[in-house]
């Protein structure tokens, strides 16, 4: 595996490894937060006391790392880079060198973010949303270079994913194999390019906003400082204009993975291939006009709240259609339950809860009470965690044979699923009630408030469950590392799936396919009347009519 390779598969594995590294760091930060919330101002085992500003830094970096340095690299860059060329029958991405550059710019962004922990004043502590004026003046948080490096790391990460997005879109538009029309693309490819378009067209204003914030902090401009004629609300608009499409950029590939896995283990076509695509496009377009539901109470003009409340609740419709399509896929199917399918169903089940709690946040009056409380935290963990961890694990278990050439252990996989599923719900269902009780986000010590005292036992329960959730990842780590070298050797198509990546070797050759595949049908022709088998690969020539 050449370090500076331009092979999309190697680059995918590099993104995956960096994403998993950051997932560990993000997870350990969770441990610090949860311990401080359950047992305020006691020594965290293995760390020590947590001061309030340090707690703010941990909250900020947990959010930043999980969204930008775990979810994006794993779901978009790792799965996208590995799967798109293989699934459309291409030899590599359209711009291999640009692809390599995108990883190394992301590695630089990671280095800058890591460095921001060790500069004087510590890392950024103004929340992963970094609202000015708190983030615009060093003395408000006591963090100077930490926040500057945080902004620089984000800017580099945006540049890296812009390059990646250009690669994904150009490859899918131009490098499809003969016969691979747009409506024969596997759904995960549809989801990846929709996510790439959302990212490309929404990140611009935030890059402008970040330039302005960096200038406020370093050059002395007053974009967001009212005393200099600036507007603090401007950042919130620019940030969330990007922020909401961003959460769909993370969600769509996760849904795409589930949509790939379900038909394979149900031996049944995905239900409503075209309705799902139209829903995805509709959700993508709607995602550009929902952002201000983050700002109902931010001092924004109250008249704006209703249009955004309506678009927010309406955007639940396309996702409801996708969920119904997934459920309809299971109807009259022939379902088997290897680990990828367990995680896929787990993703669907948990995403349903996340989607439903979104309706509460989308309704402006209810948001008056639950905004900036732990109800919101529980909501976005049900949506982001389901897409990143459950769908991410589903994808890892499913494509591990193709990526690394070995099979993963099923028993360890199932243990890992059930532990993660149970403890995930044990952590985040009670969090809804802590939120309804009024507990505000980003507070280091709930005991400072009388009205939060009765909620403290729930906080302790959540912390204990979170520790078990962290520990239940051990079976995965063992399984992942052991199978890399000692797992059963995988053949070309262990899952008997139709999509093109399963026609290549495991792991594929440098140029993926021995000969350029020709595509004859949709990727979901399972249990098709045309074939005695219950699967029909995309590149299998149609059976010549018996004479």
């Amino acid at each position, binding site marked *: 595996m050449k370090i500076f390779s331009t092979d999309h598969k190697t680059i995918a594995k590099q993104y995956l490894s960096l994403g998993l590294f950051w997932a560990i760091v993000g997870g350990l930060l969770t441990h610090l937060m949860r311990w401080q919330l359950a047992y305020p101002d006691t020594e965290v085992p293995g760390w020590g006391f947590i001061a309030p500003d340090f707690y703010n830094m941990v909250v900020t970096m947990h959010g930043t790392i999980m969204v930008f340095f775990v979810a994006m690299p794993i779901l978009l860059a790792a799965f996208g880079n590995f799967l798109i060329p293989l699934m459309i029958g291409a030899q590599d991405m359209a711009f291999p060198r640009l692809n390599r550059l995108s990883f190394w710019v992301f590695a630089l962004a990671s280095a800058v973010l890591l460095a921001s922990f060790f500069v004087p004043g510590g890392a950024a502590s103004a929340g992963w949303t970094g609202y000015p004026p708190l983030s615009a003046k060093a003395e408000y948080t006591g963090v100077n270079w930490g926040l500057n490096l945080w902004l620089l790391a984000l800017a580099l990460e945006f540049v890296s994913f812009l390059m990646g997005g250009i690669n994904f879109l150009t490859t899918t538009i131009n490098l499809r194999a003969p016969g691979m029309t747009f409506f024969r693309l596997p759904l995960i490819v549809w989801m990846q390019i929709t996510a790439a378009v959302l990212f490309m067209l929404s990140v611009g204003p935030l890059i402008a906003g970040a330039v302005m914030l960096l200038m406020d902090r370093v050059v002395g401009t007053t974009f967001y400082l009212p005393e200099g004629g600036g507007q603090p609300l401007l950042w919130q608009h620019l940030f969330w204009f990007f922020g909401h499409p961003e959460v769909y950029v993370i969600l769509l590939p996760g849904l795409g993975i589930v949509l790939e896995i379900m038909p394979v283990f149900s031996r049944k076509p995905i239900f409503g291939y075209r309705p799902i695509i139209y829903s995805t496009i509709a959700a993508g377009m709607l995602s550009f006009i929902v952002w201000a539901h983050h700002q109902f109470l931010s001092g924004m003009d109250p008249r704006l*709240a209703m249009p955004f409340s309506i678009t927010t609740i309406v955007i639940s419709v396309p996702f409801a259609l996708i969920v119904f399509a997934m459920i309809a896929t299971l109807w009259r199917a022939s379902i088997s339950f290897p680990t990828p399918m367990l995680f896929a169903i787990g993703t669907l089940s948990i995403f349903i809860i996340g989607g439903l709690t979104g309706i509460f946040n989308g309704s402006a009056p209810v948001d*008056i009470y639950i905004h900036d409380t732990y109800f919101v935290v529980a909501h976005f963990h049900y949506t982001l965690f389901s897409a990143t961890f459950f769908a991410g694990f589903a994808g890892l278990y499913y494509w591990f044979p193709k990526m690394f050439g070995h099979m993963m252990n099923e028993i360890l996989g199932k243990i890992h699923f059930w532990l993660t599923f149970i403890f995930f719900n044990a952590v985040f269902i009670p969090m809804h009630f802590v939120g309804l*009780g009024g507990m505000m986000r980003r507070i280091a010590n709930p005991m400072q408030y009388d009205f939060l005292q009765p909620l403290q036992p729930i906080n302790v329960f959540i912390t204990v469950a979170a520790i078990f959730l962290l520990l239940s990842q051990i079976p995965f780590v063992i399984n992942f590392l052991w199978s890399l070298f000692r797992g059963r050797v995988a053949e070309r198509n262990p899952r008997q799936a139709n999509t093109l990546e399963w026609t290549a070797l495991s792991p594929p050759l440098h140029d993926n396919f021995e000969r350029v595949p020709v595509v004859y049908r949709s990727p979901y022709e399972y249990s098709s009347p045309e074939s005695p088998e219950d699967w029909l690969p995309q590149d299998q020539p149609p059976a010549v009519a018996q004479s």
Partner: protein
Amino acid sequence: MSSWFPENVSTFGGDIDSLFYLILYITGAWFLLTQGLILVFLIKYRRREGQRAAYIPGNSLKQAAWILIPGLIVVFLDLWIDLRGAEVWARIKGHVPPGDLQVQVTAKQFNWEIIYPGPDGRLGTVDDLQMDNELHVPAGKVVRVVLKSKDVIHSFFLPNLRLKQDAVPGREIVAWFEATKPGKYEIPCAELCGFGHSGMNGWLFVHTAEEYQKWVKERWPEK
């Protein structure tokens, strides 16, 4: 059922709670329907030897109806929630009723500076009185709060009054509430505002009419 929420002592709090329960019932129904269907399908259609799955691509309109119709139901329920929500929002945030008492609350890193207009009823006059973190109001009266901030964004949060409104530096935002039950309620800050965000807390004292008059007399004795 309202054990999840802190005690509601606000006139418009009931509307917010009832809207919450409306959404809870709708989403609860969807939750049971979808998770139930998944469980049933997983058990009923698990893989059995010799039994093939049905070939239902779901692209034709007739087949797709199975997901489009539930989709339509979601649309109508969404509209119902939106209409109910629009009306409640207009009443709470849409316009501010004429207040019987107006105070100015200036948020700053890490407490609430509350300025009372005094007997002349106008802010910015000599008889104004400033108290930190203590808001004294009469029950059953509309209180208008003029929110300002000296440094960063804070959020004026009264859980028991179901009221939350960010205080943005450089802007004056008016919020209002009418407390129905005397008592002592907390005013935490709900927006990250620096290392003192955790613990930034004020107190709302809702007095009966007599207690309030007594309190006023103690503060402005020369009358």
